[in-house]
């Protein structure tokens, strides 16, 4: 049997294995994890002929440089990503949302994401990975999941245990649009904040701070003044919750968030806007817009329909 694998020649900034995430573990302190941008994760699996819940490689800003050894295999990249495929002396410009069939000795150089944070590399086959609680998603905080719960590192190998029988030549016309208005539902402590604080939140512009990662996104902007109590009795969190600590700067909980928190909850980002939210790079300007629960539910149905429609077009 031929061994098929990728050798990691450059790991990139934050390259991890991710899938749909793991459920039913908040009560012991383990978050969902999973691909940050779920739509792009699903699309990369469809493009490579995988089951939709197959693990993919998530990278942030700068991706990995991989050299492939083995039989022909399909790969695809989703997001807004600059990448190249090097075959001997030939350099092929990579296109997102398109399947490429690569062969022994090819190099895949994922140079950078373009005005976005996360991109996904799909590999047409089964990657040899450890599952924990039915997911291989890497949680680097608790060292859970694939790759012993750690980021990918230089000189490591990604072993392919099985290559999909059919190579693919899929292509999808899709452009990631950027979001500027993040829609939210009022949080359970909305009334902890002063009239001016609430006004600032819903009318002023905020900037995504450099201190943002898979756990949370910190924002800078006008202070959101608390007039009741800057702490609450610690209670559960979910992704999308906007907490405001005593300094008045909001923090949005993302997929690897701590499961319990003691800061007041100002709002919650609606599910339909989560994929676009996580793609905002430090320095991006955003505004919040309040919607009702029923609107959020309708918007999620539309988001789901659009995702399913994109999947069915591949």
């Amino acid at each position, binding site marked *: 049997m031929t061994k098929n694998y990728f050798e990691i020649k450059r790991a990139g900034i934050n390259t991890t294995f991710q899938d749909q995430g793991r459920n039913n573990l*908040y009560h*012991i*302190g383990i978050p969902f994890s999973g691909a940050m941008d779920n739509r792009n994760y699903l699309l990369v699996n469809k493009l490579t002929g995988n089951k939709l819940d197959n693990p993919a490689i998530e990278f942030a800003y700068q991706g990995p440089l991989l050299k492939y050894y083995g039989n022909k295999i399909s790969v695809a990249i989703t997001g807004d990503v600059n990448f190249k495929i090097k075959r001997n002396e030939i350099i092929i410009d990579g296109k997102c949302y398109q399947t490429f069939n690569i062969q022994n000795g090819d190099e895949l150089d994922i140079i950078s994401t373009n005005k976005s944070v996360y991109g996904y590399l799909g590999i047409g086959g089964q990657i040899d990975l450890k599952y924990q609680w039915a997911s291989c998603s890497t949680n680097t*905080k608790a060292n859970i999941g694939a790759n012993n719960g750690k980021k990918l590192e230089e000189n490591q190998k990604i072993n392919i245990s099985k290559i999909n029988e059919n190579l693919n030549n899929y292509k999808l016309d899709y452009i990631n649009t950027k979001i500027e208005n993040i829609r939210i539902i009022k949080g359970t402590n909305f009334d902890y904040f002063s009239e001016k604080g609430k006004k600032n939140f819903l009318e002023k512009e905020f900037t995504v701070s450099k201190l943002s990662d898979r756990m949370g996104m910190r924002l800078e902007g006008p202070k959101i003044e608390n007039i009741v109590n800057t702490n609450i009795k610690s209670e559960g969190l*979910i992704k999308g919750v906007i907490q405001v600590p005593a300094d008045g700067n909001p923090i949005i909980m993302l997929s690897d968030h701590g499961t319990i928190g003691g800061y007041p909850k100002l709002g*919650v980002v609606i599910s339909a806007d989560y994929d676009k939210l996580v793609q905002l790079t430090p320095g991006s300007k955003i505004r919040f817009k309040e919607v009702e629960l029923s609107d959020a*539910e309708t918007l999620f149905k539309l988001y789901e329909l659009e995702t399913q429609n994109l999947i069915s077009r591949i």
Partner: protein
Amino acid sequence: MIKNILNLGDAALYCDFGKDVNKETNIQVIRYFKSIQNKNIEGINNLTPSYNKLIVSFDLKKTNFKDLKNIIENLTITNTSDLKNKKIEIPVCTHENFSLDIKRLEQILNLSREDIYKNFFDKEFFCYMTGFIAGMPFLGDLDYNMRAERLETPRVKVPKGSIGLTEQFANIYTYESPGGWNIIGNTPMNIFNNLKEKDPNLINPGDIISFKEITKDQYNNYND
């Protein structure tokens, strides 16, 4: 009983059991948590019990706030029989390398370190909840004379195994993590086993915890 159910965003129920943080309220929360867990209700993908709240997260593709609220409001909750309290003793070394904030506590509480440790080691604690980081238990209640605020500036790194105090609670840092609790010692015991899928947590809500002082030598030679 649940006093009120609100929506937390579009994909979670926020069940409020009242303002007070005490054992009785928390036992109600744990009872609801276990009953809902046992019923395997379609669409629920996470439950987060805390002192006086229970957050029920769900998959918006499978259910919605209104339907799930209706189900939770009409649940019959089983009584005490399903609350199995384990008793667990945690070894703690209070060597100066580990008791990072004991001097600060002596000043704030106006107690000698001997009094602080006597009070702490004589106490039986109740586990209210686990979380924030994997397996971290929130234990209560400390006596009124033992209650101190968090550090004004949290530490960037609290060592793994640290025992922290804040307000009426004690906790154990199961991983190295940022944190602002007053650190009084360290346990060599593994509180969370990330390699076990079944029961990775040593301590669960409802368990009764006590701490036992050990020497630096015992700490160094400790085997789980």
